[in-house]
């Protein structure tokens, strides 16, 4: 084996050499150990890594499945929401219409009520005024009669009464 100088060192015979002695370099044992390691380690490692890979795969698939499920649910919910909003808008519109109608009818009714009330008020006022007038008339008439009666009682002497009666009789006789 010729020395192959690769690296300068302080050693006199600088360089690296290849040592081909199988026994001295422990090469056979190393190869056997490597072989054993690969033989036993391979199966173990392969199983381990396949398991890991499968776990990751299933986890990912699960996650994707869940994601697509969630997306579908989201879409469904969104369409439901849209429908609900539509219905809400419709209900709102209907409500507004009904409210408008109700308002108009209430206004009309209120106006009618008002007119009716005014009318009845005027009628009752008129009735009251009439009643009061007749009452006053009656009272005035009663008072006048009472006064007349009193005057009559004061002034009507039997002579005067006779005079009146005679005069009335005379008038009756004149007609007759």
């Amino acid at each position, binding site marked *: 084996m010729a020395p192959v100088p690769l690296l300068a060192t302080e050693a006199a015979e600088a360089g690296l050499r290849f*040592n081909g*002695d199988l*026994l001295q370099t422990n090469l056979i044992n*190393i190869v056997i*150990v490597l072989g054993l390691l690969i033989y036993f380690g391979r199966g173990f490692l392969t199983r381990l890594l396949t398991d890991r890979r499968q776990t990751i795969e299933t986890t990912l698939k699960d996650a994707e499945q869940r994601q697509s499920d969630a997306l579908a649910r989201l879409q469904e919910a969104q369409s439901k929401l849209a429908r609900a909003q539509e219905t809400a808008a419709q209900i709102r519109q209907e409500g507004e219409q009904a409210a408008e109608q109700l308002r108009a009818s209430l206004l009309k009714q209120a106006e009618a009520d008002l007119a009716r009330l005014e009318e009845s008020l005027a009628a009752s006022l008129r009735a009251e005024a009439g009643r009061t007038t007749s009452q006053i008339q009656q009272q005035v008439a009663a008072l006048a009669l009472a006064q007349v009666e009193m005057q009559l009682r004061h002034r009507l002497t039997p002579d005067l009464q006779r005079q009146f009666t005679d005069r009335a009789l005379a008038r009756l006789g004149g007609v007759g």
Partner: protein
Amino acid sequence: MHPLLLPGTLASLEVGKHLYWHLGNLKIHGQVFITSWVVIGILLVAALLGTRNPQRIPKGWQNFMEYVLEFLRQLVRGQLGEKEYRAWLPFVGTLFLFIFACNWSGILVPWKLIELPEGELAASTNDINTTAALALLTSLAYFYAGLSRKGLGYFSGYLYPTPIMLPFKIIEDFTKPLSLSFRLFGNILADELVVGVLVLLVPLFVPLPLMILGLFLSAIQALIFATLATTYIAEALEDHGHEEAHN
């Protein structure tokens, strides 16, 4: 130049021999750098391959790298909690991956095919300098965590739960990096030495069980290092003061 541990045997074993490079006044251990660079390169390539063409459903290498990341995330999240772990995941994750790759490269990469002029290529974590550097980085990290969270009030945590703990807590700041670095270094070096010695004595088949044991051990060492680093950071982030105030 190769000290023969057992004269007349096939191979030699080198401990304490290094390929020195000079960087200014510094002498650096070249073989550690070479293997570290290779490991860093492997990690970078692995990361790039994993993220080059990311798929929604990961397969192949991306799947594997994601699994690794998930493992690390669990490790860090378990101790730092949901709120803190993200900031510290890169640090701890890098620690774990680097140590793990270094340890395994020491067993699985036939470094000895390449013969250096001096020293030999091996897992870079079997050099105390590497592990000490990693341990000191961990110390820096947890000091940074504590100081950035509580300012200088972090040191009042040393009096918790009783002031008697103060000297122990101070000693702990030194023993933490020490134990981290020596544990990793010792385990990896010991394993490599045992395998090396066995390879010297009986080159075929006998080192196999120890190499397989080494695979387990070095994986566990990487896990221990990362877990302890996370624990230290979690300890530094803990709110002693507030607990006292509330109680």
